[in-house]
């Protein structure tokens, strides 16, 4: 059996039939990592107990204690806590930090006997769209080593794309799962806000963050989502099963879909021509297969990026106040307590993190709060209302995931706003709290190299099933 190319379902079947063992699977991926990760740099650390975990999974299987992910390896973004293991959010300020407890998603995966391979590279504290903001050097795109894998969950996406892991977890605050999935040619899901517990993920923008899965196929991605999805009493933003059913209603999850396309937004400026062409072609294919394409107007969508770059830095500046050299991580001594703070944070935080804390502190400061933060929240509500209204007419909304394919390492490093504009299609989703998926939709050529593109589908709150359905269609028709 070709373990590296097998689907989760195939691995499950082979494991349960005792054709292969969890140890064999773990060894296959570990040797693949050794072979290719020196160049790609998807992992910050491989855990030293991978084979031990795999042996444990094999005893579970032998005892008939089998769950969907028993013995299946998973790579983890470096902002998720596993008790006793390092977690740094790719920041110098948390170098050497050891997690005191398991994130809720980790507990769920442990309960199923999944095997954790290691922690993956990311933009520092999930701030960025290229993984270039990691304090430990960038990750390369497996399709073209001179290009970024996207970000912030770039290490997780590259690991899955390069077959170093069959599954990975990431987090998505403004596109950090979907955009790297698109750049690396894999599937990535940003679940509904409140679907997956955030206990034990390092907070960035608390009204926006969600943990979500990466896989090479929609079915694989769905398998990981099924494990982590669900209510957690210890996350106050987790939504109860009852409320989910109420919010979701009876959405369409199979068959022909009405696909809304915000045309003036998608076909506007700043989107590469061949990305638009690829998007049109995918829509035509879906139409031929029996789905209907419905042009829609979402006039507030173009304001989402501005809203995002007010609300997110505001939340970043408050969330990252906890890194003060007192509780954990780096400590740099000064003349007094204030200087301890200043020096610790001045030494430990990278450039983009400092930039966003400064921006966030500015928009929250007296005199500017109304003009920025309050106004952004008003527009946020308008956008959410607009989206709810749109879903009364269509089942899903489609956009390209990103306006471009993967860009070159260093290309946008000197212009933060240019980097932010790459999030234009993904941020409205986090602003509204709805779920969205990125599914591969083909390739475009850049400098003689075929680079993957992704198509994004957006669904109503808690309608992830709808996303899996339509994304499977794109996969099937490709």
């Amino acid at each position, binding site marked *: 059996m070709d373990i590296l190319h097998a689907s989760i379902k195939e691995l499950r079947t082979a494991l349960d039939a005792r054709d292969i063992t969890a140890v064999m699977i773990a060894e296959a991926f570990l040797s693949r990592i050794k072979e290719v990760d020196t160049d790609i740099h998807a992992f910050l650390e491989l855990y030293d107990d991978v084979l031990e975990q795999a042996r444990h999974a094999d005893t579970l299987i032998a005892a008939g204690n089998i769950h969907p992910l028993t013995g299946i390896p998973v790579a983890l973004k470096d902002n998720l806590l596993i*008790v006793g293991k390092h977690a740094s959010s790719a920041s110098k300020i948390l170098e050497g*930090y*050891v997690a*005191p*407890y398991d994130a809720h998603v980790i507990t769920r995966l442990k309960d199923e006997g999944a095997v954790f391979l290691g922690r993956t590279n990311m933009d520092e504290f999930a701030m960025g769209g290229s993984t270039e903001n990691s304090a430990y050097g960038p990750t390369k795109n497996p399709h073209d080593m001179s290009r970024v894998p996207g970000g912030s969950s770039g290490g997780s996406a590259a690991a899955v794309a390069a077959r170093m892991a069959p599954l990975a977890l990431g987090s998505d605050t403004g596109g950090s799962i979907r955009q790297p999935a698109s750049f690396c040619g894999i599937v990535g899901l940003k679940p509904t806000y409140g679907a997956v517990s955030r206990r034990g993920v390092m907070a960035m923008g608390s*009204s926006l963050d969600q943990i979500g899965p990466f896989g090479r196929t929609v079915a694989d991605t769905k398998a990981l989502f099924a494990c982590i999805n669900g209510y957690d*009493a*210890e996350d*106050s*933003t987790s939504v109860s099963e009852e409320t989910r059913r109420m919010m979701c209603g009876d959405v369409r999850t199979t068959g022909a879909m009405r696909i809304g396309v915000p045309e003036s937004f998608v076909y506007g400026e700043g989107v590469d021509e061949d990305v638009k062409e690829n998007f049109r072609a995918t829509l035509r294919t879906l139409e031929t297969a029996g789905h209907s394409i419905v042009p829609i107007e979402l006039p*507030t969508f173009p*304001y989402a*990026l*501005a*809203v995002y*770059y*007010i609300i997110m830095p505001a939340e970043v*500046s408050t969330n990252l*106040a906890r890194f*003060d050299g*007192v*509780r*954990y*991580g780096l*400590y740099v001594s000064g003349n*007094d*307590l*204030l*200087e*301890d*703070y*200043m*020096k610790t*944070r*001045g*030494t430990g*935080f990278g450039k983009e993190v*400092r*930039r966003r*804390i*400064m*921006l966030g*502190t*500015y928009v929250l*400061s007296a005199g500017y709060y109304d*003009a*920025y933060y*309050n*106004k*952004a*929240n*008003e*527009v946020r*509500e*308008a956008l*959410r*209302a607009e989206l709810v209204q749109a879903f009364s007419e269509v089942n899903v909304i489609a956009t390209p995931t990103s306006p471009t394919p993967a860009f070159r390492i260093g290309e946008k490093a000197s212009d*933060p*706003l240019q980097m*932010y504009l790459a999030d234009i299609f993904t941020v409205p989703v986090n602003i509204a709290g709805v779920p969205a998926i990125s599914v591969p939709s083909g390739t475009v050529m850049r400098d003689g190299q075929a680079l993957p593109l992704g198509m994004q589908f957006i669904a109503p709150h808690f309608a992830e099933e709808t996303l899996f359905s339509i994304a499977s269609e794109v996969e099937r028709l490709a």
Partner: protein
Amino acid sequence: MDTDAMKRLALLCRIDMSEEELETLRAEMEHILGYVEKVSELAPAERALEVGVHHNVMREDGTPRASGMYTEALLSAAPAREGDFIRVKKIL
């Protein structure tokens, strides 16, 4: 924003930065703030008047887990401690 305002902001952020970095940051921030100001373009009538779908969720007082269960794990992460306390430089 002038240089003094940037310095005050850095102090509020509790981040030690060189004047050179603050100067670069000033230009970048003006560029970004210039972009995000477009939120004010939306006329009041078009805006939803109600703000605040997010609200605090409180739980009942109680003991969700045994007292002291995480004390050692959490304290051992602190750069400086004295017994069961975190040690910091004098505050006043």
